[in-house]
Structure formats: C-alpha cells, structure tokens
C-alpha cells in the first residue's frame, strides 16, 4: 500500500482527524481492581484487660476479632479467653472460625466452628448465629451452639455505647449463656448458665486504634451451674475491677 495517499490526507486533515482517528481505539473491558469486590480486613480487641476480683484473683482477659473478606462474605476468627495469672491456667479459652454473610440491612448471619480448650476437657461446637445493629444502637451477637457431644446452648452478647464526649465513651456489655442440656464435665447445668456484665469507661487516645479503659465486670452463675460450681469449690459470683484497652487496627 502506497504511503502517498494517507500522508497527504493526514497532512491536510490531521487536526480534524486526529481525535477521530484515535477513536478507532478499542473500548476495553474493566479488569482493574475497581471492578473486583472490595476486600477489607481488620483486627479488633473489644477487651484486652487485667482483672482483679474481690477474691484477690488476678486474671488476664481478652475478646478479639479478626476478619477478612468482602461485603458479601467475610471470614472471622473470634478469640476469647480468661487466663488465671497465679494458677497459670486458662479458665476460659474459646476460638471460633466462622463465615459471615449479610442477611438484612443491619444484620449478618454466621456459621462455623468453635473450639474450647481451657483447663479441663476440650469441646468442639458447631456455631450458627446472627450479628448486627439493633434499633436504638444496641450491638447484638446471638449464637446457637451444638457440641460434639450433642449438647446445645445459646449465647447472647449485647453492647451499648454512651458518648460522654466524642472521646470519653462508656460501654455497657452483657453476655448471657443458656444451656438446653447439661454438660456436667465442664460444669454446665441446664437453663440459664451465666451472665457477664461490664461497664467500661474508655478514652480514645489514638484515633479508634488504642483506647485505654477502666471498668467493672460482674460474673455470675445460675441454677444448676451455680450448684455445680459450689460443689467444685469455686465461686458463683465475682466482681472484678478491670483495666485494659480497646484496640482496633
């Protein structure tokens, strides 16, 4: 093909043609990151504290949550524990691995497994639950557990935050556990098992990343669970002064 015609044409019409000639470019399909679901991750320690009880008991306690995923599916590792400092033993050690999906504007459903490996017998549970924000700003986490031994129980966690100022926040928490069948080996009686309530005053020292707090925690066992505890020589009710920090990253 001779170069003369295109050359003449372009010299005469380049200014007009230049934009149009370039239009013959292909319209590409978007394969960039923007067209992929946004993946996020996070680490949060709702509790990371030292507890001192009215019985001179000292504990280190934590309640943490690691998540990774998209709007449509997240994987979460929840870990919760109470470590008795003197005895050097875990009074409570719970690790959950769940998958979570949105089911409504404010709530997610989750399913997974929970491994309990404290001092004493271990347990494995299947987990099914819902988590989200209820009206009037209550954070709710409700779960149903079925153990490898066949025992079922349920747990309701609720949290409410009150803003004294935009940096001083009072958080009230309630964790209540109900067992539908007893599990004597680990000291769980049928019915309402226990409640843990806490009030913590925190200060957002570094953004929302590090917020030290002080507070009070009340643990109590009920009914058959309380009887089992007394028989075993343990207490059924404890008050703790706590000091720790909320961490979010």
């Amino acid at each position, binding site marked *: 093909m001779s170069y003369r015609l295109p050359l003449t044409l*372009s010299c005469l019409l380049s*200014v007009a043609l230049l934009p149009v000639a370039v239009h013959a470019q292909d319209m*590409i399909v978007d394969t960039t990151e923007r067209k992929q679901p946004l993946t996020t991750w996070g680490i949060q320690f709702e509790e990371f504290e030292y507890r001192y009880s009215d019985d001179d008991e000292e504990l280190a306690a934590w309640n943490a949550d690691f998540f990774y995923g998209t709007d449509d599916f997240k994987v979460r590792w929840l870990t919760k524990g109470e470590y008795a400092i003197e005895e050097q033993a875990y009074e409570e050690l719970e690790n959950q691995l769940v998958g979570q999906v949105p089911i409504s504007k404010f709530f997610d459903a989750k399913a997974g497994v929970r491994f309990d490996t404290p001092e004493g017998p271990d347990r494995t549970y299947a987990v099914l639950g819902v988590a989200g924000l209820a009206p*009037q700003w209550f954070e709710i986490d409700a779960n149903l557990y079925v153990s490898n031994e066949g025992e079922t129980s349920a747990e309701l966690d609720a949290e409410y935050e009150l803003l*004294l100022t935009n940096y001083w926040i009072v958080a009230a928490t309630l964790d209540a556990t109900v067992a539908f069948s007893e599990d004597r080996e680990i000291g769980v009686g049928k019915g309402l098992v226990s409640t843990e309530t806490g009030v913590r005053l925190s200060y957002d020292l570094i953004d929302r990343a590090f917020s030290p707090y002080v507070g009070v925690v009340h643990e109590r066992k009920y009914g058959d669970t309380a009887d089992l505890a007394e028989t075993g020589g343990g207490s059924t009710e404890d008050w703790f002064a706590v000091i720790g920090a909320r961490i979010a990253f």
Partner: protein
Amino acid sequence: MNIRLGAVLFGLLMPALGLAAEYDLTVDRVQIDSGDFVKEGIGYNGASPGPVMRFKEGEEVKINVTNNLDETTSIHWHGLILPFDQDGVPGISFPGIKPGETFTYEFPIQQAGTFWFHSHSGFQEPDGAYGAIVIEPEGREPFRYDREYVVQLTDKHPHSGDRIMRNLKMMPDYYNREQQTVGEFFSDASKDGLMNTIQSRMAWGDMRMMQADVEDLQGFTGLINGKGPEQNWTGLFEPGERIRLRFINSSAMTYFDIRIPGLDMTVVQADGNNVQPVSVDEFRIGVAESYDVIVRPKDEQAYTIFAESMGRSGYARATLAPEQGMEAAVPQLREPARLTMADMGGMPGMDHGSMAGMDHASMEGMDHSNMEGMDHSNMKGMDHSGMKGMDHGSMAMNQGAASDPFYAKGSGLMPKAANGGKFLSYSDLKAQDPLYEEREPTREIELRLTGNMERYTWSINGVKYEDADPIRLKYGERVRFKFVNETMMTHPMHLHGMWSILDVGAGQWNPIKHTVSVNPGTTVYVETEVDAPGQWAFHCHLSYHAAAGMFRKVIIEGGPDSNQAKAEVVTEEGGEA
C-alpha cells in the same frame, strides 16, 4: 498506523505554528507537610499539588507522563472535553500507566477556563496526586481583572487513602468526632424540652442513623495550594485591583463553605464555564467543583480566605494581602451541622407527612417568616403582569432568606452566610454562553443514589459498580438524568467527557457543569448532549464512595462517523484501578 505516521509528521510542525505545546509530568513519591503533620504522599514533578498546567484554547497538547511509583498510575483531566482514550481512567479509557512507563497524552484543547487534573488510580488523589489546569481563552473573557490566583483546596489527612477506606469499612463512624453526646442531649433538652429531645433521639435511633452523619472524614488539615492554615498561603494585591480567584475543590470528601470577611465575591465561572455574574458573600464548593470569583479589595489590609467544612469539623485558610507576612483575623468554626428529618426524605418507606413536623429538637431558631419565600427560579412562565400591588412583607427573596431549592425544605445543611448576607445557590447560576441549543430530551434515565452507611457500601440504583452493567447511551441523543438521593449524604456526581446541564429552571440559560452536587432527600435533573463517542466513567466524586461502589461505566453507542468510531469491545490486560 499510516494515518498515525502522517499525524506524527504534522504534529512535529505544529509547535512551530504555535498550535501545539508539549509538557512533561513525572509522578513521584513526595513528602507533604501540612503544618500539622508531615506525611509521605504522591505528587507531580516532585510536589503536591502538582504544577498549574497552563494551556491555550485551540492548541494541541502533548503531555508525557512518567510513572516513578512502584504501582500503576493515571491522570484524568477533570472537566476537559477530549477523545475518550485520553481521559485517563484505567479500565475504561486505557490500561493505566505502569511503573517506569511514560505515557503520552495527546488531545486538542476545545475550551477555556479553570479545571484540574488528578490520578484516577487507587487512592493516589487523596494521597496528593492533583493539580490545576488554567486554559487561556482564544477570545476575550466576559469579565476583567488585574491579576489572578489559583486557590486549590484539599482535605489532607494523616492517614493514607487505603487506610481510611479500611477504617471506614470496619467502623463507618471511625472519623466522626462530632457525634451527639450526653452533653448535647441535655442542652437540646433544655432548649427543646425533655420529651421532644427523647422523641427525637429515639426516632433517629430507630432508623439507626445519626444526625451527625455529615462528614465521613474528619481530622483532616485543610490545605490551600498545598499550605495548611499555619503555613498561610498568601496572594498579594494592590488596593483597588480586581483579582480573579480560581477556586478548585480537590478534596477527597469535604465540601467547603468559602467566604472572605470584608470582601464581596462576584462569581463569574462555575466548573470552567462562564456564568452570568452574581455577587455573593459566601458559597459552598462541592468536591471536584470549581468557582471563579472576582474580588476587589480596596483597603491596604489583609483579608482571610476562610474555607469552613460543611460539617464544621475543619477548615482551610489563606490570605490576600498587600504584603507577605500580613494576616487577618481567622473566624471561629461554627456549630457542627446536624441533619434533620427533612434530609431523610429520600429514604424509601419514609412517610414525610408525619415526619416533617416531628423533629422539633432540630428546629433550632428557625425563622418561619422566611419559609414561605417565593422562589422565582422555579416558577416557570409565571404571569407577573397580573400582579398588582405586591405585598413586600411576604416576599422573603432578598439576602438573608435561607431557602435554597436545591436542599430539602428544612434541611440541616441549608447554607447560611456567616454574615447574614447572600449565599450562592445553584439556582443563581445561569450560563453566560450556552453551549447547546435547548431541545426536548430524548429520554429520561433515573439514577437513585443509594447506600448503606453501616456497611459503608455506596451504589447507584442499589447496585455497586462491581455488579453493574454499563449505562448505554446513543450518540446524538439528549439524556435527562434524574438523580434521586435516597441517602442522607450529599453526593457530587461527575460524568466524564460530556457536559452536565443542570436544570435550575432557566431554560436555555441552565448552567453547564461537570460535577453536580445532589443533597440528601432531593431530586436533581441534569441533561447531557451525548456528543462524545467511546466509554466514560460516571461516579460520585467522594473518593471513598466511588471506591465502595458508587460508580458506573457509560458506553456511547455510535459516533459521528459510524465506520471509524465503531467500538470493538476487546478484553485487555488491566492493571490496578
């Protein structure tokens, strides 16, 4: 290929003919010092903001962009009319500019005015990759001035864009430090009564929405031309001179209310297009918008350019003075903004009738005498000739009447000039030179602006960009976009490549913009003449909303010459967005 060769040869001749200019830009990692903190970010030619690109209307520009980062980058020329593959959006215009690569943009300048440019990759723009564009017109401008300054605003944050996105997804109120506290409950109770306050808090608590949800990103330092309030960018003048200030809002998330205490501002250009001059005391500039104003300081003193964020959490300031080093008083920030039930009006399922009257707690000192003000801008074809003896008492149209039709009636975001004077409204904007003939739109497309604050997902018609089909338009049609804001946030909607003619009720004088702000609970109409072939981005310009899904691709089917512009959709390797 052959046409290219000829074009290249002609192109080489053009600089000699004064028809072309070549520019070089490098994209670099830079240090940004806001005066409050120093942070590593991204800049152009070693600095953030980048250089002011000065083009001439009618010239062919060639811009060589070298990527010195270790990630893909891009430059989008905001507001410029150009061939779609020069628009700089990775995944839509081109694959992006890879690390170490130099990409050459080439396009004709077909307009004049104030515009800007920024990266369209990741969060590089909030991290500092932005600059200004000033295009000199061929002819004479419909206004005169003795000197000019670019006044480019941004909301520089100590956190990087990636980190901010992650934090917002984890905790949507992560950065909101203007939330209602126990203290505010008691002060509201003493002002509006205990029961009213309880009812109000419960009504909002029921919805799980916060009245304080005005600004997602707080804790920033406002910068003007890269300088924080402490560093005080200063523009010099001689008393009596007319100064043209080219205000550009290049921030990621922040709307600014701008005033210069002691000086009247006459708005002469909006989004780079001339408007019939209108004098105001204060104006609100949305993200990605630009306003050119003329001021005339007559006294030998300093004036403060004060840009207060819409939610009142932060500010930017600069100074106009006869000499360097002079300063004028910097005003205090006003009370934090609070949304009202009127702003919730767009939410599906809300019964406005019963809601509007209930929110007593938020009706602070509302001047009801001004609520019934007549608004001529929306009264098309009203027959004035029959109106005898108008009663001035009921005409609250003059300065001071806070009733902008582009805000929900009773909105908590209704702009008020700090000195009680005139606040610019979209309805005051009228094109000086309409670009298109007025004609009936060929069809209407409804775009509901939607989102879920708790999950921090933002979308259009309930669908995020990742799940959405492109919007298809036909070359030559005139589309009327109906934006229905079903969220409680203000969204600056930006269509690339084509003008957005905002319907303010002025017929052929409707202003021509590139970015249109849609306030909560309102519906805004915009018309576009579809005269730019190819495919274009269309999105909310709040950086973290666009990334969370409030984005669309627009495909134009057909072109001026169907054979040449026939679009072939081909799969190509893409880099990072």
